[in-house]
């Protein structure tokens, strides 16, 4: 009955929706374009642009050649470095924060000693700083490595 019904409804204009004989792909409205010479040239120029950009962006760290410079470049750099060092000689150095060391030893040694409280304070602070640095650690979250179960 199902086969008889499908034959009967084949030419009915009232049948709605796709049937078993309707086309799956739509009718091609335009012809399939073939590649012309101009499009080939465009593709080649686009490829060349991509290659050029890649060559400019790539940083090759594995290629390290022996360090060699021309003599003219070496002498030029030497001159430049010497002039920079010479310009730094005129720069005033920072003022020393420690007391001047131009007094006789007898005078220096007869001065008042550092108080024990200050010594204890400095010792405690330095020990606390060392302990704080030692206790610096990464907060543990989920494990970093995932093991895949072998079959």
């Amino acid at each position, binding site marked *: 009955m199902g086969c008889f019904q499908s034959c009967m409804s084949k030419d009915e204009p009232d049948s709605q929706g796709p049937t078993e004989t309707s086309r799956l792909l739509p009718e091609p409205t335009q012809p399939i374009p073939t590649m012309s010479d101009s499009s080939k040239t465009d593709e080649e120029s686009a490829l060349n642009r991509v290659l050029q950009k890649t060559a400019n962006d790539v*940083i090759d*760290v*594995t290629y*390290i050649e022996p360090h060699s410079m021309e003599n003219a470049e070496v002498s030029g750099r030497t001159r430049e470095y010497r002039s920079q060092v010479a310009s730094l000689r005129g720069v005033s150095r920072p003022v020393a924060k420690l007391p001047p060391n131009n007094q006789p030893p007898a005078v220096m040694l007869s001065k008042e000693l550092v108080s024990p409280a200050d010594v204890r304070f400095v010792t405690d602070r330095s020990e606390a700083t060392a302990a704080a*640095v030692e206790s*610096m*650690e*990464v*907060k543990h*979250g*989920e*494990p*970093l*490595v*995932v093991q*895949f179960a072998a079959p």
Partner: protein
Amino acid sequence: MLKPKELTKVLEQANTGGFQCTLLLNPEGSLMAFAGKCDKKENITAAVAANIWMSNAKSAKSAFQDEGLQYIVMDCEDGKVAIRRVANLLLCVYTAESVGLGMLRAKVEALARYLEEPLKQIASP
């Protein structure tokens, strides 16, 4: 296999108090992971750091004989950079100028201690 999100979270923990960016890269210059506000391109930073490491590693081999190069610290004009070997990878950190060298080293050591074991598991076949 490494979990990339967890790895990024671990690297992110270092980026406080003047620390700007933390990167994990291989000696060839490929960037494995990074965390932080990196103004410049991270892959370029990784490549330059790896190049600096490789340039110094050869001469360090003859200088240090047994150990080889473990650490590079650079005090630059605009900040500081530290590169440390972890398993078979490199940990690179760069900070602002205000960060002290002691704090820089302490944080890098803490990170390296934590990452050493997991990265060794990945490195070993």
